[in-house]
């Protein structure tokens, strides 16, 4: 670009992953052996890096590339933007690679499609005079068609219809260059940012002729307000009056923003489009221009068209150029996830409040995206994928909740770091890495206190996910692996007696005991501070103790009677999809007995566990071992596994929460094939922090025990209150 270089590169990242492997137990003393073996292995994953820095550092950057360029097959480097021309010789000389210049607009659109498809909360609208200036949008399953208005020195208006089909439909010469050039002439201020600063302090009414200056008030017949601008600079038609720099800059900003907004609306109308994404240096990270453009679009479209902005707008060209170069690999066949640990996030909207941060992120900024092993898709049972929002509370919106949760995560941080270090007793640098982790996550939390929207909508889920990403970054892939191993071992020993006592009950009593077991199991959550305190101090705390902690019926949310009625009166469900939560007692003594009952009723079961570790949540590989061991004890489970009536699958996620719009494709296929008609979501992370309001096309059961007194209070209950939400979609 003119002043900043945006570099996109692909790297393989070696990092540690925890693996579990079942022992061969034949002929061994099972009583005293651990259930399975845990090993930490090196894994190589793919990552996309995007870095933005000032052009003055380009040589340093080229040295870095030279040192890290491992793939000797690389002969060509793709470049786009004005600087591609300027630095061509330097790049070719330094790297010995050929520079391929790519068309700016093609790269921009490719990059735009990529972020729209792969980064949740990429898109936001600007809202004036609101506590949260940015309103993030959920990713729509179909991103096309849209209008991209790129405001560089001029304005380009492009209609994008499919991945490869786009058309330049118009433009305007009045753009960022006009603001900058004309602004420099009028105010003798040279820098673009300074001009914007001037503009934000000015009064345009001193320079512009307003409707009320002509009419004395509003132009009522047409409904034009008196404050509308009738003629930009209409009051400066005199040689003998001085105008302040601020006022002229403000008037110029309004003139240009209004004009661009008006033209964009005219094009949107002609092509029947209602989504306009704005980009280019005029917009990039400047709340002042986002505000004036949004105003203009709202005014000229009468609210019918929405002005939208992108979190990673500055990277689009670089991403696109990268994708052009990686076409053989076709990065679009994979799913990608934003790595919160490695990304600097959106800069502050209030340069006056946090000038330091503004300077930092204005010149150096990065984004990392991990290539996910498996493609992610929507759960086919979502009622309306385009309006589905996983998260229950938007912490960018809810200042009270935001303060509480940020403090909560801060307070738990020392404990998490300690546990991480303790999980690797044999590692010499574990303490040091744990401290680095602690520092990094602490800094992220501080950033989020000041800029809640840095990574899109702030939610309990994003806070949890960021923590997991930071732990991974410092090679703590699974701090709870040993705890899970031990708890799975203990729980397995109790499985048969739990089943026996359940089988001794009458049908109705058994149904209740099963639900209670599921809920009691859910108490064992190391992610909840109230519980981890208990588990740390009372190691013998068990299933029966947990049951006694549970709230008596009626529960805080209680549709148990309807559920029981459904079981009694209705035909067995065809297939149930269960999203499991914790390892140990939860999965073994809570979920499996429940699964067993469903199987006995003739309902098939898909049991979905996380692909990767998060807290003490059961992972897919752990669930395989657990299932195998249960099958050895229980003929119902054994035959169900053999006859594929019980299927274990992975969710594609490594989060303690659940985003039903980003699930493993294999799971989605199976859900469709087996004609799933019941979805059971268990646990606070998956059923309360997320999906509490998720609407599904089939029956669903959301259950959890609230292990956080603040949240309980919010929902009108006490700690260990029970949520049992049985929902039937309205016909």
């Amino acid at each position, binding site marked *: 670009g003119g002043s900043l270089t945006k570099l996109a590169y692909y790297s393989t990242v070696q990092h540690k992953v925890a693996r579990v492997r079942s022992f061969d137990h034949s002929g061994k003393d099972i009583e005293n052996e651990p259930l399975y073996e845990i090993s930490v292995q090196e894994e190589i994953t793919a990552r996309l890096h995007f870095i933005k820095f000032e052009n003055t550092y380009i040589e340093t950057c080229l040295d870095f590339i030279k040192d890290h360029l491992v793939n000797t097959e690389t002969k060509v480097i793709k470049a786009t933007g004005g600087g591609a021309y300027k630095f061509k010789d330097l790049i070719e000389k330094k790297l010995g690679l050929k520079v391929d210049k790519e068309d700016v607009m093609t790269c921009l659109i490719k990059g735009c499609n990529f972020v729209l498809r792969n980064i949740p909360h990429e898109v936001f609208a600007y809202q004036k005079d609101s506590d949260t200036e940015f309103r993030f949008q959920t990713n729509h399953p179909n991103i096309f068609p849209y209008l991209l208005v790129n405001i560089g020195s001029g304005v380009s208006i492009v209609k994008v219809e499919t991945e490869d089909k786009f058309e330049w439909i118009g*433009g305007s010469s009045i753009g960022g260059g006009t603001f900058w050039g004309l602004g420099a002439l009028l105010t003798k201020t040279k820098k673009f940012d300074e001009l914007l600063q001037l503009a934000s302090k000015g009064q345009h009414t001193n320079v512009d002729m307003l409707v009320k200056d*002509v*009419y004395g008030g509003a132009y009522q*017949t047409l409904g034009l307000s008196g404050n509308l601008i*009738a003629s*930009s600079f209409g009051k400066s038609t005199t040689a003998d009056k001085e105008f302040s720099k601020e006022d002229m800059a403000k008037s110029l900003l309004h003139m240009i923003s209004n004009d661009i907004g008006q033209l964009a609306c*005219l094009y949107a109308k002609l092509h029947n489009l209602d989504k306009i994404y704005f980009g280019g240096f005029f917009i990039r990270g400047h709340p002042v221009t986002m505000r004036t453009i949004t105003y203009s679009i709202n005014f000229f479209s009468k609210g019918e068209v929405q002005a939208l902005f992108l979190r990673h707008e500055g990277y689009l060209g670089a991403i696109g150029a990268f994708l052009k170069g990686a076409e053989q690999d076709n990065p679009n066949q994979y799913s990608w996830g934003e790595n919160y640990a490695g990304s600097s996030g959106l800069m502050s909207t209030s340069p006056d409040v946090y000038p330091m941060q503004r300077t930092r992120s204005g010149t150096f900024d990065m984004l990392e995206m991990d290539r996910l092993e498996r493609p992610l898709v929507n759960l086919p049972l979502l009622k309306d994928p385009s309006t589905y929002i996983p998260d229950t509370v938007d912490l960018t919106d809810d200042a009270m909740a935001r303060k509480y949760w940020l403090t909560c995560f801060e307070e738990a941080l020392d404990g998490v770091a300690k546990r991480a270090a303790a999980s690797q007793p044999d590692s010499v640098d574990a303490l040091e890495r744990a401290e680095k982790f602690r520092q990094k996550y602490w800094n992220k939390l501080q950033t989020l206190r000041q800029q809640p929207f840095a990574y899109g909508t702030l939610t309990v889920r994003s806070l949890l996910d960021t923590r997991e990403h930071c732990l991974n970054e410092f090679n703590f892939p699974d701090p709870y692996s040993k705890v899970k191993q031990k708890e799975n071992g203990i729980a397995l020993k109790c499985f048969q007696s739990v089943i026996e006592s359940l089988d001794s009950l009458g049908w109705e009593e058994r149904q209740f005991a099963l639900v209670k077991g599921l809920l009691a199991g859910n108490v064992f959550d190391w992610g909840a501070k109230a519980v981890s305190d208990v588990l740390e101090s009372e190691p013998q705390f068990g299933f029966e103790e947990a049951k006694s902690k549970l709230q008596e019926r009626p529960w805080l949310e209680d549709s148990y009677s309807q559920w029981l009625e459904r079981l009694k009166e209705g035909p067995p469900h065809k297939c149930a999809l269960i999203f499991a939560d914790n390892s140990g007692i939860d999965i073994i003594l809570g979920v499996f007995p429940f699964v067993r009952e469903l199987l006995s009723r003739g309902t098939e079961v898909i049991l979905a566990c996380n692909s990767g570790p998060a807290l003490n949540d059961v992972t897919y590989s752990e669930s395989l071992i657990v299932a195998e061991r249960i099958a050895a004890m229980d003929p119902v489970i054994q035959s169900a596994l053999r006859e594929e009536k019980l299927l274990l699958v992975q969710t594609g996620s490594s989060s303690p929460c659940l985003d039903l719009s980003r699930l493993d494709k294999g799971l989605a296929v199976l859900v469709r094939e087996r004609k799933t008609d019941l979805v059971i979501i268990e646990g606070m992370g998956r059923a309360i922090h997320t999906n509490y309001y998720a609407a599904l096309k089939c029956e669903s059961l959301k259950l959890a025990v609230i292990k956080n007194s603040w949240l309980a209070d919010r929902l009108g209950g006490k700690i260990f209150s029970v949520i049992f939400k049985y929902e039937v979609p309205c016909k």
Partner: protein
Amino acid sequence: VFPWFGLDIGGTLVKLVYFEPKDITAEEEVEEVENLKSIRKYLTSNVAYGSTGIRDVHLELKDLTMCGRKGNLHFIRFPTHDMPAFIQMGSEKEFTSLHTTLCATGGGAYKFEQDFRTMGDLQLRKLDELDCLIKGVLYIDSVGFNGHSECYYFENPTDAEKCQKLPFNLENPYPLLLVNIGSGVSILAVYSKENYKRVTGTSLGGGTFYGLCCLLTGCSTFEEALEMASHGDSTKVDKLVRDIYGGDYERFGLPGWAVASSFGNMMSKEKRESVSKEDLAKATLITITNNIGSIARMCALNENINRVVFVGNFLRINTISMRLLAYALDYWSKGQLKALFLEHEGYFGAVGALLELLDSA
């Protein structure tokens, strides 16, 4: 009852049309009160009033029949900031004793209503400016310009050599897009005499050109600004497509001569120091004109209208803008749209106001 006036008080200029009866009978002559006679003499024997009032003699419509009376229609303009002096004069000439109604349109009809009443003891009849504008356009076009056509266009607008001004027959005018460029711009879609709507407007109009020129060049009149512009070179100020791509940008079908960024070269300090005031005036004129052309073209497409009539005082003595509008509309629409112009550019609102007066009589 004479006198017959139509007044259009805009943001920058006041437009006044005056019907001078030429068929006054001897009897009427005797009865004509003294101050009425003095107004008639004052207006028709001068071409300038005070230091700022001007009668556009070349626009005068001769031997016109209005309401059964024969006479000449005069076109007079003065700056809006001289309104108080104008009202003062009306008061001194005892206009109020003539028992006539003063029909006025434009924003100033509302803004100065109170002043007319208190300073001049005059009751204004306020009329909507868009109604008046359309009425005026249709009327003047129908009576013609002293035997010539009121409406004209530029043939071969894309060819500087062959380009020439030719009369256009606007007998079946509908539908048409009417673009009125005063201080600001209003765009109307007109489907019949009574059926029209305001499609949109822009604040980048004549006032913007003039205002920016004052700030950039220190000029003090619209005429001076235009004169400077006619000697300037905007390509020194603007960044053209060829300045970025070395030539045409074929991917988008953009010719190298097209402006990519208005004032785009002014981002550079060296270039800011090397341009003249004339260059800046020209660039301002080109920027505003192209933008109006662009918005008008988009409106025409959205409304499915292919004739665009440009009026308003921004076009007065402004051939550069008219030719550019004709060119831009033709080029960017690939010949689908036609730009039309009217000789009485900025006076249609005032004419409409006069017609309202006669209609009500």
